[in-house]
């Protein structure tokens, strides 16, 4: 291909490939200003939440402790003794822990799906039920426990959990903004709902749950 023809194509590309529309200056500034002005969770604190997370448990014993913590919180289904056995018998019993964690993950993801369904339904009305915030806080804690368990979940679930973590931080932020009577609550809610859609969380949850449920034998 001649250089001249290539130059022609490049010129046409400039006019036709992902051509930016007029910059929505004020619309974006409103979001940025809200993020700067709010001390509650926002895009900024989402990033901080992610950067600030450190693995809490390492090695087989710590891994079992994570499972135990999840189960104690009621995420697991009556397997309180399983992680204790893992802890006492060492790494050779890891498969038992894997099963317990997978079961906990299924329960957790199912509950998260229920919360997100509620948030989406209520979000259309412009506010969230007060029950949402404490529920989201609990699920956020559980999400981080699962994420901070080395080897506890496979990469697909980890990706989903990371996105759920961000969504839950946003939802907690909405709850805090609403509880505090902040004028930015609507913006936070809009951001949270858009985040759910952009990350396609509901379809991903609905796709992964049946598969995971089968693996967990529940």
């Amino acid at each position, binding site marked *: *291909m001649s250089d001249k023809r*290539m130059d022609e194509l490049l010129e046409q590309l400039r*006019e036709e*490939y992902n*051509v930016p529309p007029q910059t*929505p200056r004020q619309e974006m500034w409103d979001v940025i200003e809200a993020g700067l002005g709010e001390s509650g969770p926002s895009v*900024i604190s989402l990033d901080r939440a992610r950067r600030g997370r450190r693995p809490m448990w390492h090695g087989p014993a710590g891994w079992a402790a994570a499972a135990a913590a999840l189960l104690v919180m009621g995420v697991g289904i009556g397997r309180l003794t399983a992680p204790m056995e893992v802890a006492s018998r060492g790494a050779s019993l890891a498969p038992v822990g894997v099963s317990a964690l997978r079961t906990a993950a299924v329960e957790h993801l199912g509950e998260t799906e229920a919360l997100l369904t509620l948030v989406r339904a209520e979000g259309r009305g412009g506010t969230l039920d007060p029950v949402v915030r404490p529920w989201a806080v609990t699920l956020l804690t559980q999400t981080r426990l699962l994420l901070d368990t080395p080897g506890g979940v496979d990469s697909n679930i980890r990706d989903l959990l990371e996105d759920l973590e961000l969504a839950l931080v946003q939802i907690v932020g909405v709850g805090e903004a609403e509880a505090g009577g902040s004028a930015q609550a609507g913006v936070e809610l809009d951001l949270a709902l858009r985040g759910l859609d*952009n990350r396609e969380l509901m379809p991903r949850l609905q796709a992964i749950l049946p598969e995971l449920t089968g693996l967990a034998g529940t």
Partner: protein
Amino acid sequence: MSQGVKSENSAINELAALTDLDLVERARSGDQAAFRQLYDRNVDRIFRLAYRMAGEDDLAKDFTQEAFLRAFQRLDQFRGDAAFSTWLHSIAVSVALNGLRKVDRHRKRERSLEDAAHVTPGRRQMEPDVRERLEQAIEALPDIYRTVFLMHDLEGYGHREIAETLDVAEGTSKARLFRAREKLRAALGEEMQEYV
């Protein structure tokens, strides 16, 4: 003109006369108007680049917003070694690439050529087959090539600025652009000889 409006205009003019570095200093001390001035000076180029990379309005807005928010929250980390706009571009490119990787795991980037709504009237448009091949070839470029290609050939950035933004040598930027163009040429291939 009222005294208040005069005073406001005067403040705006004062900010407009400041360098980015001065504005950063003011923003660090909490001056909201300085944040806005930094935003106004840079938002068009950041949004355009984000849009070229994302091909979607919502994604481009998200990337732009997140880039500014991150930059404003990390102003204390800006040492002034490079221009503020370069530093901001580095953050924006990083945000966009990370965001696109996440999006691409679940869906392909939207085809944009067919939807191009801003084609200059009267300008000869690309043949559909060429467009499709080029689009696929651009989408298939590795990030390091695609980013340089979009910045240089579509948005008109110079190699020096690209190099500073991506924290690579200027020669690396040129080499990446060369490789990107070669890949596009190869993608058009022999089937396109009639146009060549």
